[in-house]
């Protein structure tokens, strides 16, 4: 069946319908049907190809134009929707994500919220949600095209805040880091974020939210029904599916694969979504490491890592924008292997390892192997994964296991502070014992075809006295070690220079003599507010 016939099928009236899933579960009518929850009720569509995006389904099939396409690559946030689902423990979670690069089937069995689902100007409705009303009150919309996306990011914070809790400007900046506005300059939008907690939620919206949660609980047992889009619910089923279909495109949050579809018009006959396997949605805590499953989002992984290593929190917040962190997974970032994937230099410095798994059909068991993350890559976006293998776990050592005298820092340099890709990224872990460097692990991004470990530089440090002279030699070694390229983000010369300077910064920050008055990082400028506003 040609693609256009499918399009024609969507356009036929009556093909999709609302159904009350709580009282009358619907059997999928075709192999490619999709059911998700909206406004507390189930929406079912038929003939949805595996590569169709959530934005396309909402705008084109359901004619819900509250969702806007601004860039089709997850960078502007105009398409932001909130997805509600249940975690393996049955707790509801609400995530703002980019619908333009999310696959429609990924929300199968979940709830989707758009700006038109949480408020209305119609006279029959009972008003706007606080996330909307506060934007109106603060003059936070001008041209209005980005606005529904901002509304949904605000709604995402609102749902994740305790009732009545005030959203700080810092929280709002993090939550809105994936939304671009070209008109307002953001001040009124950030004010709206701070004010929305004071406004009441219209009763009809609360009712809808309650109905949604009830519907989610009723739907949770229903697996996605498309055979070409598969989201197995257990690790075993996932690995067996992988073994049976090594040609399937593996996806998690599709924050990268989504662009292959929207920008390169690539099509996939079969998609295997790893985010359903209950085992892999967990972060398991062991005495010396965290094991982060392949279904764990970047937001969840960074929350866990940031709790253990608070110094790195700002670094985590600078990874893309929140909707990308909410959809993308740490394992996806690692497996995808972009040379500038910002998590890898840090994971390298932390001496993380990967657990790869596959279904061994002959021995009828799950086979696995473990390797250091830097050994995973073999070339530009190439890795050691066998066709039937997946990255199942990332093992990240915990601070308890760090040798004493260890300092860990991660630095990202990009054109824009938030929601940008590094020109250069450097993560450094150095242990000093009795004045000597006893251990060093240094990960770098943006300087080679893959994320890399700076072994030459480490050699220039380990066993040497922890002095300015040693650091100077190490800085030279670091600049020599890689041959970065020039591109639109930065020149090769700049990358090389800055790479060394970041190691210098590590040295400066490690100095015990540093006085309170001295600040070395722009991230610390909140300490400056008293200075600039006397």
């Amino acid at each position, binding site marked *: 069946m*040609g*693609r256009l016939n499918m*399009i024609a099928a969507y356009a036929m009236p009556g093909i999709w319908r609302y159904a009350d899933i709580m009282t009358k579960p619907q059997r999928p009518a075709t192999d490619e049907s999709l059911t998700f929850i909206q406004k507390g009720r189930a929406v079912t569509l038929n003939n949805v190809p595996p590569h169709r995006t959530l934005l396309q389904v909402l705008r084109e099939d359901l*004619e*819900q*134009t*509250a969702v*806007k*396409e*601004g*860039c089709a*690559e997850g*960078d502007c946030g*105009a398409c932001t929707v909130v997805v509600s689902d249940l975690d393996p423990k049955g707790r509801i979670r609400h995530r703002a994500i980019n619908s333009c690069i999310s696959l429609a089937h990924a929300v199968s069995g979940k709830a989707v919220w758009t700006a*038109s689902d949480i408020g*209305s100007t119609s006279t029959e409705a009972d008003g*706007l949600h606080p996330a*909307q009303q506060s*934007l*109106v*009150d603060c003059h936070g919309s*001008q*041209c209005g*095209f980005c*606005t*529904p996306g901002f509304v949904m990011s605000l709604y995402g914070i609102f749902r994740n805040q305790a009732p009545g809790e005030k959203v700080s400007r810092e929280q709002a*900046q993090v939550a*809105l*880091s994936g939304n*671009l506005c*070209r*008109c*307002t*300059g*953001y*001040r*009124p*939008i*950030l*004010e709206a974020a701070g004010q929305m907690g004071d406004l009441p939620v219209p009763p009809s919206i609360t009712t809808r939210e309650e109905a949604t949660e009830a519907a989610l609980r009723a739907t949770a047992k229903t697996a996605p029904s498309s055979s070409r889009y598969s989201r197995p619910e257990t690790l075993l089923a996932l690995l067996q599916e992988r073994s049976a279909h090594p040609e399937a495109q593996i996806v998690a949050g599709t924050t990268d694969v989504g662009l292959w579809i929207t*920008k390169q018009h690539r099509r996939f006959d079969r998609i295997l979504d790893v985010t359903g396997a209950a085992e892999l949605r967990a972060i398991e805590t062991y005495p010396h490491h965290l094991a982060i499953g392949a279904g764990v989002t970047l937001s969840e992984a960074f929350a866990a890592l940031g709790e253990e290593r608070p110094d790195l929190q700002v670094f985590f917040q600078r990874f893309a924008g929140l909707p990308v962190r909410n959809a993308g997974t740490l394992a996806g970032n690692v497996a995808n292997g972009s040379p500038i994937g910002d998590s890898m230099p840090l994971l390298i410095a932390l001496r993380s390892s990967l657990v790869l798994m596959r279904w061994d059909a002959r021995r009828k068991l799950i086979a696995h192997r473990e390797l250091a993350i830097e050994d995973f890559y073999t070339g530009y976006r190439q890795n050691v994964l066998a066709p039937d293998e997946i990255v199942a776990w990332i093992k990240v050592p915990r601070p308890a296991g760090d040798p004493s005298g260890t300092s860990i820092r991660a630095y990202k340099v*990009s*054109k824009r*502070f*938030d929601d*940008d*890709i590094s020109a250069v990224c450097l993560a450094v872990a150095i242990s000093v014992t009795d004045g000597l460097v006893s251990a060093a692990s240094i990960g770098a991004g943006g300087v080679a075809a893959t994320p890399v470990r700076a072994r030459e530089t480490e050699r220039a440090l380990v066993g040497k006295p922890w002095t300015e002279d040693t650091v100077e030699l190490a800085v030279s070694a670091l600049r020599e070690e890689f041959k970065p390229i020039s591109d*639109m983000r*930065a*020149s090769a010369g*700049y990358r090389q*220079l800055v790479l060394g300077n970041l190691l210098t*910064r590590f040295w*400066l920050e490690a100095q015990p003599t540093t006085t309170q008055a*001295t600040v070395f990082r*722009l991230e610390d*400028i*909140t300490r400056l*507010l008293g200075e*600039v506003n006397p």
Partner: protein
Amino acid sequence: MNAPEQPMRNLQSAAGQSLVHESAAAQVAGEARYIDDLPMLQGTLHAAPVCSPMAHGRLLDIDARQALAMSGVKGILSATDIPGDPILAAFAHDEPILAIDTVHHVGQVVALVVAEDMTTARQAAAAVTLTITPLPAVLNVREAHEKASYVLPPVTVNRGNAESALARAPRRLSGGFEVGGQEHFYLEGQIAYAIPQEQSQWLIHSSTQHPGEVQHWVAHALGVANHAVRVECRRMGGGFGGKETQGGHLAVWAALAARKFGAPVKLRLDRDDDFMITGKRHPFTYDYEVGFDDSGRLCGLSVDMLVNCGFSADLSGPVADRAVFHVDNAYYLEDVSIRSYRCKTNVQSQTAFRGFGGPQGMIIIERIMGDIARELSLDPLTVRQRNLYELDTRNVTHYQMQVEDNILAPMLERLATDSSYLARQERIARWNRLNPVLKRGMALTPVKFGISFTATLFNQAGALVHVYTDGSVQVNHGGTEMGQGLNTKVAQIVADELGVPFGRVVSTASDTSKVPNASATAASSGTDLNGRAAQFAARNVRDNLAAFVAGLDGCGAGAVRFEGGQVITPVSTRQFEDVVGQAYANRIQLWSDGFYRTPKIHYDKVTLTGRPFYYFAYGAACTEVIIDTLTGESRVLRVDILHDVGNSINPALDIGQIEGGFIQGMGWLTTEELVWAGTDARNPGHLLTHAPSTYKIPATGDLPAVLNVALWPEANREDNVHGSKAVGEPPFMLAISVYEALRDAVAQAGGSPEKMNAPATAEEVLRCMT
């Protein structure tokens, strides 16, 4: 912070109130419709562009066989399918609608593929093969200048004798630098939806700042009269100048496809295509020499401006002219010589963008002020103050216009006080002594921006005000709504004129069948022109009603007042809607047109002298930044703005323009870097930053920690609607203070601020440190 204060004015009047944008509630609920949201007519087809992959070359063949074989593809359209003139009806008549036999930049549209759905159209467009033999491409503006490759002839403006003034100046500085372009990045990409009507007529939904021009272009391309084309635009998702002419291309392409395939055609550019195809802010390259005395006062200035116009003229002439007009910014230039070269290069045809050359004109003189101050070890603000236009002497611009409404000196003084300029200078110096890595800097810069289209003929506008029998009011005007709140302001003006509550007045979509021949909503003039025209239209209706009521009550029409939804005479008080009902029954005209043309303006297009501007809008900003000397990264810490909007019609909307303009200007000068592949690259002339992943406009995290905005408390001294001043563009140039503050920080860190080009990316700042 910056919450607009309620003005102390007649509480019954709508003007002066911070009313929310007329579409705000619909926008937050996702109900406000943009063109892509309109329900599509059955049978609508979708078009996608086939773009040149080469910067310059001879187009030999378009092979669409593979595309045409794809299911759902209707066909392809190229230059040979154009029934009218294959050249766009643009001012210079130099731009083909679709490439004819030559391609002039990477991204130039060669053909359109039309299919049943958008994805298929785009896939098929990617499958079209072009055969092009390369021709030498000019990618560098200096190379274009050397080869005298221009889209329009050079323009020179002289006043006094710059050469001899420079020769006898006690001190001199000279230099050169570059300022990059800027992508508009309107959140709603370019789009048009063309719908064939009966009897060879056309309805075009176009996201455009200039429906009248779109109508003209479409008619010209289709070979029909203007009256056969109706263009409608309810709102744009942002314009910023990027939809002044550029929206017209899409409308023409969609209309041609609709004609060829006999069906409605929608054309919405993918974001990457939008970057690759459409024009941007003009990049400028400068060479200058300036003379000055030991007090820092200018004596002699010579400037060469190389304007990178891209492959065609588009609006480059008036953009380059406005740059020439704004080289003075706030300062008296006694002996000056400016040469403006409109260079032709093989990149996108650069176009209007907020400020329209003004920012590129001003930045050079602000740079010079900073450099003179450092050369003389004076405070830059002192040097700026010594060079300001004065009131009775030294008050004539280099284009012979007397500056009559000068408020610069008191404005700078007040802002210096409000921002604690001197005290903070000391704190900054102390900080910089103590901190080896992070260095702070500050700058206070003024803006004086001329208001009016420099093309005098565009300074006219029309409006229609309809009063219905229930007393509700509709206003339509020639302007367009792109988020700036024009429709809100115009409705406020009309509400006041008729003495009815704001909620009674609705603004409707811009429509060429309502107000014809309207000028672009541009040059910050939207409210000045259309607001006045609407005021006149409403006044005509009010006069009709006043005469009618005066007859009823036996009083003079001048004694009839319209206030608070009532019509009041010395003997009676009636509800507005009752008067309207009675007037209708007595066959009184309840609707009217209004027309306005700006007075006093004139200028000579050859010598660029005269009075091109009705008045000036003023502002000043004090900005503090911090730079990281290890990486070149920077942050804006605090901004204090004092800006002149005259009597504000809507303080909230005006503050929205000021803050939004400032942040957009900050982006232009810091993170927004357009990178084209050079001649030695694999794909010369290819714009490498063609999506938000690589082109970085400011995000929430870039908002300065402190941003104070105050409005200058004085009415426009010229007779302008409600005593207001235009506000769209002037605040953009307040961001030059960011650039000057960064250069100050570099200087304080021991670097070389004179090396700094814009945008001052991290890499550029670090380059100035080494």
